[in-house]
């Protein structure tokens, strides 16, 4: 079956622009995660959805970051008024839920803010 897909794969934004990053999880997966991976570092947790409910957004770096998953499937991560420090790879992962279940990652969106 299809894995996790993300779009766009690459995004260049001018500082101050708004961007929207899309994630299509594996069909039927109830859990969806967003991570941010800065250059040369490991991924860092941003936010978590169980179905359409955003249960943890403790990793979002500022109120410029907003995520939604309105129908419990596709998710969008939105960054308003982008800053240079937002440049990173944004990874989406999904799992079937439950403690210890494997998270399957998409290819990521590489965001460059100029």
């Amino acid at each position, binding site marked *: 079956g299809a894995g996790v897909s993300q779009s766009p794969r690459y995004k260049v934004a001018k500082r101050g622009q708004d961007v929207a990053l899309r994630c299509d999880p594996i069909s039927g997966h109830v859990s969806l995660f967003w991570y941010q991976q800065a250059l040369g570092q490991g991924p860092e947790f941003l936010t978590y959805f169980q179905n359409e409910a955003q249960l943890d957004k403790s990793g979002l770096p500022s109120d410029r970051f907003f995520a939604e998953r309105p129908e419990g499937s596709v998710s969008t991560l939105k960054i308003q008024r982008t800053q240079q420090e937002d440049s990173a790879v944004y990874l989406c992962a999904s799992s079937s839920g439950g403690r210890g*279940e494997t998270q399957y*990652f998409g290819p990521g969106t590489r965001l460059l803010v100029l």
Partner: protein
Amino acid sequence: AQSVAQPEDQVNVAEGNPLTVKCTYSVSGNPYLFWYVQYPNRGLQFLLKYITGDNLVKGSYGFEAEFNKSQTSFHLKKPSALVSDSALYFCASGVSGGYNKLIFGAGTRLAVHP
């Protein structure tokens, strides 16, 4: 604070030799631990995980890892390295009470030389 450490930025090994990529963790409660591999411009691919049970876990592509509770380690191993194993490897731990969100190490670059 809960954390995962990968003490080596890079590991070099000759093709055909055994390889070890080190990981130590500091988490509350019973840990569940993962290894992922990342190839250039691609997302994270799941290799193996430890949840409970046998301390030696076998995973994809001939990799295995040993959970050692007394040393709080989860080192990744392979008996005979291939050039195609060259990639970036991440160790991760689930966070207790954290909705399955993962904490990642900084990554170790494995270089297998012919």
